[in-house]
């Protein structure tokens, strides 16, 4: 008797220890994955945070009528074709009267971004009343000056190894003393398309490209996916054909996305001659990729609607279609939407299929519709990560932050819909 108790308590101890040990394995696993996630977020955030600010230089610009619109016509065409560079060079010459000589002045003008000329042009186009006045305008500095202001250029190394020379740094310090060089919120990042100059590059074109692609993707995959799921779940007889279809749909969900890109290339571009590099084709390809996910999610939601609902409706004399569309589908819709949103979130992050259909390209113009050429957010990240200019390092991370925010928002929307609308049985 005594022996028996001893052994039981021994075993009990062992079992308890095993249980605690297992719980700790689980906690450690969670901790490791969480620390990876935190590490990734912190690294991206610290690298990308700088990109939300851009160095600007305050210049007293005289919008000289003789340079912009000599005859005073006010014709927007003439203003658009005017050369705004002399406005900047004159203003710089006034700010630095001691700088003379061709190579010196050229170096001085290089502190200002080559894109600022076009910024001035747009400013005047929108406010023609500026002509003839003198204003303090904050023009964009080049990426090198920007990196210096953010402390990313090592002054101690020999100037031959830096793109920003000692002379340039002295000028920047001079501007700092007179308080006309400042870091401001980087509006270009959100208002511009791609550019070769880091200080002018923005994600608007890519974000709209993603939006149009997802729109096409949604318009195709949502109705098709839902109808397929409803038919297979509510109407189709269970036989070998439907079994085969089910297996195929499950297989399609596991097909690597690049394969859908190749399909898009050979069918939509080469056979149907749809325009290359457009969100229309991108959206169709992404729709093919998302369809199986939506079908599978929708079918499992439909299966979870209790049969009592169907029986009650049928018992009251509703037809099969009435039962399905008046009772079953409305109850399943929140879950279907959740599945669709998660599928779309995956489509938002895809680059591989877009590579094959020419959406991985340098595109400056902002797309206005689904047939305009465009890229997408993850593609923009890929292109910037591969650029030699140092200013793109922080912009790459900034674009990642924006993409992550969109993904988190979409997932939150899915969670919200599920919480808010889902019926539990």
């Amino acid at each position, binding site marked *: 008797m005594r022996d028996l108790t001893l052994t039981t308590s021994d075993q009990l101890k062992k079992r308890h220890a095993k249980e605690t040990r297992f719980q700790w394995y689980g906690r450690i696993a969670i901790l490791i994955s969480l620390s990876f996630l935190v590490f990734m977020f912190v690294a991206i955030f610290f690298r990308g945070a700088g990109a939300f600010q851009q160095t600007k230089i305050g210049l007293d610009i005289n919008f000289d009528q003789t340079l912009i619109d000599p005859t005073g016509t006010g014709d927007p065409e003439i203003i658009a074709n005017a050369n705004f560079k002399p406005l900047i060079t004159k203003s710089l010459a006034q700010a630095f009267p001691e700088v003379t000589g061709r190579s010196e002045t*050229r170096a001085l003008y290089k502190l200002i971004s*080559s894109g600022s000329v*076009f910024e001035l042009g747009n400013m005047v186009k929108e406010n023609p009343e500026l002509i003839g006045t003198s204003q303090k305008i904050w023009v964009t500095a080049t990426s090198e000056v920007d990196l210096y202001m953010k402390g990313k*250029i*090592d002054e101690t*190394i020999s100037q*031959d*190894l*830096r*793109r920003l020379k000692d002379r340039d740094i002295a000028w920047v310090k001079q501007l700092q003393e007179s308080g006309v060089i400042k870091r401001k919120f980087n509006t270009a990042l959100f208002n511009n398309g791609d*550019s*070769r*100059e880091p200080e002018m590059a923005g994600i608007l074109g890519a974000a709209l490209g993603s939006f149009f692609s997802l729109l096409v993707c949604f318009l*195709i995959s949502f109705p*098709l996916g839902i109808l*397929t799921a409803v038919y*297979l779940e509510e109407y189709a007889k269970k036989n070998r*054909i439907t079994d*085969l*279809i089910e297996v*195929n*749909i499950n297989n*399609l969900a596991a097909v690597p996305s690049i394969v859908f890109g190749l399909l898009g290339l050979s*069918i*939509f*571009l080469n056979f*149907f*001659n*749809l*325009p*290359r*590099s457009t969100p*229309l*084709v991108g959206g*169709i390809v992404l*729709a*093919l990729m998302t*369809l199986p996910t939506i079908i599978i999610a929708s079918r499992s939601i439909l299966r979870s609607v209790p049969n009592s609902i169907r029986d009650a409706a049928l018992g009251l004399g509703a037809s099969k279609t009435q039962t399905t569309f008046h009772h079953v589908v409305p109850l399943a819709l929140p879950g279907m939407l959740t599945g669709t949103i998660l599928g779309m979130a995956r489509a938002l992050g895809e680059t591989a299929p877009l590579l094959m259909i*020419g959406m*991985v*390209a*340098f*595109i*400056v*113009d902002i797309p206005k519709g*689904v*047939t305009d*050429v465009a890229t997408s957010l993850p593609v923009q990240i890929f292109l910037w*990560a*591969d*650029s*030699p*200019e*140092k200013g793109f*390092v922080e912009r790459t991370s900034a674009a990642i932050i924006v993409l992550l925010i969109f993904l988190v928002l979409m997932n939150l929307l899915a969670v919200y819909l599920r919480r808010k609308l889902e019926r539990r049985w």
Partner: protein
Amino acid sequence: MSFKPFAVSLLALSLAACGNSETATNTVKTAGDTAKSAAQSAVSSGRDQIKIVGSSTVYPFATTVAENFGRTTKFKTPIVESTGSGGGLKLFCSGLGANHPDVTNASRRIKASEVERCASNGIDDIVEVKIGYDGIVLANSRKSAPMELGLKDIFLALAKNVPDGNGGTVENPYRTWKDVNPALPDTKIEVMGPPPTSGTRDAFVELAMEGGCKKFGWIKELKSSDKTAYKTLCHTIREDDGFVEAGENDNLIVQKLNANPSAFGIFGFSFLDQNADSVQGSIVDGKPPTFENIADGSYPVSRSLYFYAKKDNVGVVPGIVEYLSEFTSERASGPDGYLAEKGLIPMNDAERNMWKTSVANLEPLSLD
């Protein structure tokens, strides 16, 4: 394939067809500009934007020109895709008309086989444009000493098979740079370079590896007797841990060099130019990879960069002539131009003017 997914794709296709008619109407609208493009849109969907494909080495330069061109002219900004030189020429030569690119960039000259392929698809008049030079550098971190190499050292360190000294070959036995050449430091050979799909790799193999390989008298003779054996020997890079394929992303190689000061990386001059504060190019055959040495051709591992345009698309897609003249203009590819700022090494004045005239006259390509 089962029945249902097939029906699904059919539905998707019919939707896609609707989209196509939409673009067709767009085309008709824009085609009003020129009678020629209206005629073209009858056969295929025309476009009002230049399409450029090709080399990833030329990509930074082509995009810069495209952006400036879009800003300073009334034409739309051209689209530039980075497909690699070979991939670009394949797309370029696949046909005439608006569905095929107008321009392809190449980090090597077009091959006779590619010209034939173009001709078989009706593309007879190709305008060749040389834009400048690019140096390929073998760089290491500034934390270690700069290296002085000969082409022979590069070949012996990186080839799969090396001469054994008795007229035969042996699998590369060298582990350290000192094994290769007693004058070099006693560090492990560790070189990161681009994969075989890259034009940079092609050029490196041809210029540096073959250049060093040829320095052995008997291998040079092999070229005339057995060209295949010669090529295999000179062009094959070792597959052990001495050479690591680091992918097409040159930024990544630069970062890895900073983390591992004893390693070397192979990439284009423009990346060295932008990262001169952290990496340094090795001196090859007594010449450091500087702007001047590449420009005058004394640095041995340098190549010419080109792009090719279709003469038949001039007048069909608006702006091609203007794009060509922007690229060859002094403010773009001159010694003080904005491309030099991006790391392109310009041609000398005489050569530049020669190309400028030939491009302005749209002289067709002749391979000789």
